[in-house]
């Protein structure tokens, strides 16, 4: 990358290689495609909604990396129970 690229803030090619690899390795390691992850998210929302009131639009399911192991991280915001009861 030359000086001009740096001045105008163009990204270095090594960092895009790293970002692309991070993404691709998660899917290689877990055998989970982005579409399967979406399907899993929909199933989770459906199951959890049967028990508690959740904000389904704000649910996020991601695969986090910890060394060579992966973990599925779900962030599921609950709706305030008391508020909905008095509504």
């Amino acid at each position, binding site marked *: *990358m030359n*000086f001009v690229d740096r001045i105008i803030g163009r990204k270095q090619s*090594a960092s895009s*290689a*790293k970002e692309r*690899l991070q993404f*691709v*390795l998660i899917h*290689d390691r877990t055998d989970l495609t982005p579409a399967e992850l979406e399907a899993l998210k929909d199933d989770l929302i459906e199951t959890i909604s049967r028990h508690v009131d959740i904000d389904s639009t704000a649910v996020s399911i991601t695969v986090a990396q910890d060394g*060579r192991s992966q973990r599925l991280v779900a962030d599921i915001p609950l709706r305030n129970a008391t508020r909905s009861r008095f509504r």
Partner: protein
Amino acid sequence: MTAKVVTVTSGKGGVGKTTAVANIAVALAAKGQKVVCVDGDIGLRNLDVVMGLENRIVYDLVDVIEGRCRLRQAMIHDKRLPELYLIPAAQTRDKTAVSPSDMVLLCNELRLECDWVLVDSPAGIERGFHNAIAGADKIIVMTNPEISAVRDADRVIGLVEAAEKGSPELVVNRLNLAMVKRGDMLSVDDILDLLAIELIGIVPEDESVIVASNRGAPLTLDAKSKAGQAFQNIARRLMGEEVPFLELDTQGLWQRLLGRK
């Protein structure tokens, strides 16, 4: 003697496995160790030409496994060093001529003969790869600082772990420092972040690797070659010595002035 069996593998082809095996073997043999190299790439043998021993082949790995010769008869002595040997791959057969259990038996027999057995794995993740790792005590995964090589290395590391061979160690080959400094090549730290295994060597890109293989002469004996030095360091680490890694000044002048990492 009870040799340690070390397999060099990579997933992707062309990252420098054969060169690494030849040079680490020479470095170990130059330290007085008895070393046997095994070319595991049946049908596509190359360790013989890289080591300059192609004219001396009589028997090969498949001849040993199928009982046409004794183990010692297939071990070609590299006369430039007191105790360096090569068992070449068969060229007219394919990888189905050998099974993982054949390799375990062969490695066990070789263990009694020498200090080190270095197995050159074929590229890919099929039978040849499984043969190459079957008898190994330690596995070295090689990669280049390049997106496809790193991805394939990750896949191979997963397969090595699945085969319950422990965590392999990494060699980053063909590192171009100027490109790393410019931010146009993955750094060793980037690769370690991604692959999350222990490092055992960093080999800089070096024209003398091609010159040495043209001649069939070991690079490791050339004191001026930076890659040769790096392979010697890997050999010393295998022998349990603590050798510092190349000092890699990856921060270019402009990056330093701009305070950017």
